């Protein structure tokens, strides 16, 4: 353990519908949420595991924070089963319909309340993005509001010295990896595939099953101006949700007759009939490489 200061990490996790199981009502064209199971946003698990590893390495504690309906308590409890130390659910009907701006506002207020109640967070983690909202904006939004240094797409935390308050990370950039050095406090959005979620032991699981999840509403985190929350606090407006339309013409099916080789030739014939220029290009390349 470096220094005396225990590290406090907060991981923002979102409960999302398992999108693989969402269906669109064939008649009304609305989303059928009935019976669609919810899961912890898969990207957030990489953030949680990274936070747990930091705690194992440096000491301190991990708080998980989720804004969502009361049923999101299940996801928080699951996070406790993985090994988080405490869980906070931010839930209020005024938050319904929040877009990323309103979400990051509410979460940043909750993070400040967490600071006042359990100690200021040194590192706030989020996932890279959610699978339902898919925006990757909430993390940057929180960083901006809290004035934390923003570190997105982090693939590795190389070093972290809680006492000195400095850290070095690897960040996935276009075409390569940036190595960045910065100071605590930071907001980190964790890249997927960087680690694998652990499985809590039986004691952790038992404690998690019995643990109290702290539940806060808007007032409890000091939100006075409710116009900054939920629908009213959201500058973006979803006007229409619809299923992707089917292409009017379906695929032209190539009949299967004779040997695979004959089928293959039929495919190639049909393919190049539509793309004569591509064939010409290929022939040219082939010709060049032949000489």
């Amino acid at each position: 353990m470096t220094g005396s200061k225990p590290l406090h990490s907060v991981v923002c996790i979102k409960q999302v519908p398992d999108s693989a199981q969402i269906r669109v009502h064939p008649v009304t064209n609305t989303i059928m949420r009935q019976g669609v199971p919810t899961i912890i946003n898969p990207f957030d698990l990489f953030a949680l595991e990274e936070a747990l590893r930091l705690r194992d390495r440096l000491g301190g504690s991990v708080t998980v924070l989720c804004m969502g309906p009361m049923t999101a308590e299940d996801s928080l409890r699951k996070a406790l089963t993985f090994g988080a130390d405490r869980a906070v659910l931010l839930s209020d009907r005024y938050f319904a319909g929040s877009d990323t701006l309103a979400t990051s506002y509410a979460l940043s207020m909750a993070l400040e309340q967490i600071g006042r109640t359990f100690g200021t967070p040194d590192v706030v983690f989020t996932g890279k993005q959610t699978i339902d909202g898919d925006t990757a904006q909430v993390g940057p939004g929180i960083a901006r509001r809290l004035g934390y240094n923003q570190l997105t797409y982090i693939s590795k935390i190389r070093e972290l010295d809680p006492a000195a308050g400095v850290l070095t990370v690897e960040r996935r950039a276009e075409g390569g990896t940036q190595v960045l050095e910065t100071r605590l406090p930071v907001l980190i959005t964790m890249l997927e595939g960087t680690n694998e979620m652990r499985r809590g032991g039986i004691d952790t699981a038992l404690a998690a099953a019995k643990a109290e999840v702290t539940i806060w509403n808007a007032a409890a985190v000091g939100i006075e101006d409710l116009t900054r929350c939920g629908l009213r606090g959201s500058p973006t407006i979803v006007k229409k949700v619809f299923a992707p339309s089917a292409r009017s013409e379906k695929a032209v099916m190539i009949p299967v007759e004779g040997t695979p080789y004959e089928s293959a030739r039929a495919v190639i014939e049909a393919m190049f009939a539509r793309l004569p220029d591509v064939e010409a290009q290929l022939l040219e390349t082939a010709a060049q490489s032949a000489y």
Partner: protein
Amino acid sequence: MSETEQDASPRFDAIVVGAGPSGNAAAYVMAREGLNVLQIERGEYSGSKNVQGAILYADALEKIIPEFRDEAPLERHVIEQRIWTMDDRSHTGVHYRSDDFNEEKPNRYTILRAQFDKWFNSRVRDAGATVLFETTVTELVRDLSGKVIGVRTDRSGNPIMAPVVVLAEGVNGLVGQRSGLREELKPDTVALAVKEMHFLPREVIEARFNLQGNEGVVIEAMGTITKGMTGTGFLYTNEESISIGIGCIVEDFVDSAETPYGLLEAFKNHPSIKPLLAGSEIKEYAAHLIPEGGYRAIPQLYGDGWLVVGDAGQFVNAVHREGSNLAMTTGRIAAETVVMLTRKREAMSAANLAAFARRLEETFVMKDLRKYKGIPNLLHGGKAQFFGTYPRLISQAMQTWFRVDGVDKKTKENAIARSFREARGWRGMIGDTFRLVRAWR
């Protein structure tokens, strides 16, 4: 969570393995009566391994949670039962529909297990039980005398102790088998059922099945759809979906070239079924075992420190397709037994837990299973007749009878009688009837 909580290793009065209908019933009743209960479920949540629609028989649940109708996720209450015998192109049916089933407290409901079980389990937790998910019990822990004193799980750490373990682990429960409490399943006493859930808008379902509001229909089918194997097919109407499935005795699958999925495909494409599903979108597919050995397959139900309930105890009435009600009833009675012994501070010994089996004898569970104890063998032994010959004969007879083609009725009668006689012989037919009546009595 915090260090202080961690080293105070919890003490439980009872551990329940599994969170299906039987485990939930047992855990709920014990927790409600003030016992410190730990329930362990390997699935992500209660019902997660059980995705499809089913029939809920109200009575058994009412005895546990009388007000369940106000909160449980129920799909439709059943007002019409259709029983079909089918050959490849036809079905002959008995339909019973009654407005009496539109009663204030309906008797049967269609449910989606995933949602229903989840609700039931939330009641278990509200009652104060500790529930661990995504945790599999790997073995029972015994003391030197062989008494069961706790369980080990697939999570790292020490075993968890309790004076009694209720095994509600379902048909394929390996814990009991591995611990030598029960025998392995025999392929001739267990059916493999495959089911699908098909989405259809509620208006379409209501129009197709002639329903209003939350009324529902159940179809049970038997005949050549199982290609001569022992088994049945079924179709249930849910609120916005249809559950359809078919199941046969595992041994028959082994002996034949049929696959469960092939059977289901054929069943769905049967001319009597296909129009009912037309335009639907398949949502879920699942396969599951059903213990169908009946009375004779029931294992030892209790011992020092343990009890078996639900499918794990083979409590399924295959003839009437009842299972979850037997599961809940056995779970409840096991729980009441444990509560009684705990209150009296008596040991969870085999001798004391025998009260569970005695009380079961007084319920419909044992009475029904005993009544039908001959049926599994009969159907299995006579599968060629019951799932091939007779359905075909009945269908032909119906067709001969209803087709108006200039042949006089007497000749038709004779032809029908002859077809039965030739196919099965007088002696065979009399024998089948006799055996059927005897098995039923």
